[in-house]
């Protein structure tokens, strides 16, 4: 038993430093989420519920806009699938890394956010540290930062009242940052250009309320058509 605890403790110590950048980002984004949700009339219970069980930063911001619109379960579900479609890629990239992680595997998959994905890709535990437990702690610490941020934001929002106008821009900022990061890493910019071009065209043609689904279909079609031209220059 003590042996087992040592193994976990060691993995926790190894995991913590790599998660510090995520801590700063998540506490800020989580707080902004809690404040915004509170401003829409959903208090700490809702913030906790969403951060524990949805646990997807961008999706939770989208969920706020779903909660303040008319009840539409089908749209909510389809929207979730589309906003989170990129998870499929993260999963595909982690198929190998998550092998032989046993009972920890379901949580590793559940907690695979953009940021956790980037930490797990970018860091390796020392030789004498259990890899499954290392990945588990990275994932759990990241979710802890996110939940803590949401709670602080929710409490802050109910105590201090200030003008939140423009605060929802935090999500745009997050995506621009990820976009810039990806742009610098990618050797091939065609997929990013296809994404932006297709959605801009669809926004102009279909209007601001119904362009997302045509844009997703358009992107899939364009990427499939471009497949042969991009072969051998893949980024994976």
């Amino acid at each position, binding site marked *: 038993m003590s042996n087992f605890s040592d193994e976990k403790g060691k993995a926790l110590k190894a995991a913590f430093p790599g998660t510090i950048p995520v801590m700063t980002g998540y506490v*800020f984004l989580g707080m902004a989420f809690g404040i915004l949700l509170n401003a829409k009339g959903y208090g700490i219970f809702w913030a906790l519920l969403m951060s524990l069980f949805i646990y997807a930063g961008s999706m939770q911001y989208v969920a706020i806009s779903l909660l303040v619109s008319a009840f539409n379960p089908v749209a909510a579900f389809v929207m979730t699938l589309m906003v989170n479609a990129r998870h499929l*890629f993260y999963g595909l990239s982690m198929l190998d890394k998550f092998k032989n992680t046993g009972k920890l595997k379901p949580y590793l998959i559940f907690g695979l956010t953009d940021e956790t994905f980037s930490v797990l890709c970018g860091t390796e535990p020392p030789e004498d540290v259990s890899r499954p437990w290392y990945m588990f702690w990275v994932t759990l610490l990241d979710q802890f930062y996110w939940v803590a941020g949401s709670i602080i934001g929710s409490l802050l929002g109910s105590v201090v009242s200030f003008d939140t106008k423009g605060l929802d821009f935090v999500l745009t900022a997050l995506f621009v940052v990820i976009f810039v990061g990806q742009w610098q890493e990618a050797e091939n910019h065609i997929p990013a250009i296809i994404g932006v071009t297709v959605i801009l065209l669809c926004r102009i043609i279909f209007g601001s309320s119904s362009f997302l689904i045509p844009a997703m279909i358009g992107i899939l079609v364009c990427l499939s058509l471009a497949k042969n031209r991009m072969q051998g220059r893949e980024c994976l």
Partner: protein
Amino acid sequence: MTALQALITIGLCVLGTTLTRFLPFILFPENRETPEYIRYLGSVLPYAVIGLLVVYCLKDVNFFGGSHGIPELIAVVFIIVVHTWKKNVLLSIAGGTLLYMALVQYIFIG
């Protein structure tokens, strides 16, 4: 929206999110080869999707009225420049958001 409707909406967000995360592991169990087309999509989709999400966030910007999208443009350019220069996620996100809030609350009022 009633509390029950809100719970259902959140439940569907949980279901959808969990599904997107578990699907690859369900479709491609530990001992099976991943089809080439899926690997290709996995490698190019993230780039297209993040571009899509940026535009989606800015979908309600009106270039022909209101503030003509100027605050959004300033903040996005600020983030691109600062992030290319410093590569600090918190600085880029917090800086860009606070700048945008200042712009829409004090300068481009309306």
